[in-house]
């Protein structure tokens, strides 16, 4: 069953590469949250109840509801509609995401040992690579936040891959980190949005001067 969610997760990454609209990004993030919930639900029920509930809350509530909702608010307030042309055409992004998926799958086959749940590693690695790539190719600061969240989802999966006790702590830290990040960036965008109509990273360098 976990494999099923893993595959869906891989497909969401392809859609991320294909999409150009901010709204679609948010929507995809919410779906990823749901998929992560599915992953956790079907694979972690052996661990302690408290941890289990915690993770469920985190994936279902935070990842698929709170964060997307918050981002949507930011989007609405700033009238963000669409990315300007990313630095690399979408056509190539799709090819790149596919290659990163293949590499990631092959890597997890190569790495498999008893300490690691390579199931999660497959898309976790691809997700992190793609998140970084996503940040690189987009100009809009809002999309950078989205890329950050994609990486975060990847890290979440990676922490599932590494073990069962450790990840909670890792995750907690990451979660807080991201939460703060989103919050700060959100506020920041809100403020910047008033001065700059289009929230582009290029404009930020102007802000420094």
């Amino acid at each position, binding site marked *: 069953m976990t494999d099923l969610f893993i*595959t869906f997760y891989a497909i969401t990454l392809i859609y991320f590469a294909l999409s150009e609209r901010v709204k679609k990004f948010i929507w995809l993030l919410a779906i990823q949250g749901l998929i992560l919930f599915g992953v956790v639900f079907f694979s972690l029920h052996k661990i302690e109840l408290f941890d289990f509930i915690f993770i469920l809350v985190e994936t279902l509530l935070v990842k698929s509801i709170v964060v997307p909702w918050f981002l949507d608010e930011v989007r609405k307030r700033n009238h963000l509609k669409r990315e300007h042309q990313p630095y690399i055409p979408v056509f190539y992004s799709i090819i790149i995401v*596919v290659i990163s998926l293949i590499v990631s799958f092959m890597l997890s086959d190569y790495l*498999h040992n008893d300490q690691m749940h390579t*199931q999660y590693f*497959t898309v976790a690695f691809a997700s992190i690579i793609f998140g970084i790539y996503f940040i690189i190719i987009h100009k809009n600061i809002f999309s950078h936040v989205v890329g950050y969240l994609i990486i975060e989802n990847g890290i979440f999966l990676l922490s599932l891959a590494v073990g069962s006790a450790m990840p909670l702590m890792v995750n907690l830290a990451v979660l807080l980190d991201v939460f703060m990040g989103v919050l700060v960036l959100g506020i920041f965008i809100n403020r910047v949005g008033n001065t700059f109509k289009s929230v582009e990273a290029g404009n930020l360098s102007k802000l420094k001067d």
Partner: protein
Amino acid sequence: MISILLIAIAALFFTGIINKVKAKIGGRKMPSVFQPVYDLIRLFKKGAVYSNTTSIIFKIAPSVYLASVFTAMLFIPIGNLHSLLSFHGDFVFFTYLLGIGKFMMIIAAMDTGSGFEGMGANREALYSLLVEPAFFILAGSVALFTNNISFQELFLHLHMSSNLSIIIGIAAIYVLMYIAIVENSRLPVDDPKTHLELTMVHEVMVLDNSGFDLALIHLASWFKFSIYGAIISNFLIQVQWPVYVQILSFFFIQAVFAFTIGILESFRARNKMEKNPQWIIMLSAIAIVVFLTALIITNKIILH
């Protein structure tokens, strides 16, 4: 042999159902499901006008096109009903056979020396080239999954037993549906209803065809739809079902397929032309995920 008949019958209703669904959603009075068939019959009875610019290529292309689609149809089984022709790697032949029809249609469009038709031919050439890998990767995944390389055996051995094979099924149906849409130039790649030549793909390619030739072309694209519908239905029909159930479910699935396309066409706008390539290559990307899944199922990638 029966499978060809079934596919041909389904083809006749396909466009009618799509139109009916679209009309219903748009709140218009519905044309009869048979309307496209009537139109076709009328076309078969008509004379033709040929451009002075055109050569033999233009005249023979529709026949070759329909022949290629018709011959391709011979390879498609339905459940237990065997196809007329079947051999190892027949889906390669199938794809290239459709390719020869496309080749002829493209050069026939260029034969008219019209800017419009050049445009259509050019678009068709690009899109069909982009969509080709998706079909091969999908076929490869299923071949890997079932260890068979002909349509007949692929589907006979396709058992949706585990969770992962369900993914293969869903994703394959999804990709196939969109391949059918690209191949037949429907929304969101192309809109057959938009009235201006400048935005169309397939319709503008056949702008100069008339009468019998045009009827052949229409018939070929119906068959094409029905062929893909049949392939999709094979993913769902189980061979252990009784034959009549198989036939009924074949028609049911074809109808659902047409219905889905009708709904899709009502509720979304078409792509911007320059976005089409990336949208089409996405199908190959999803097909690759299917391939990876097949690798997991066959324990080529060992995960735990």
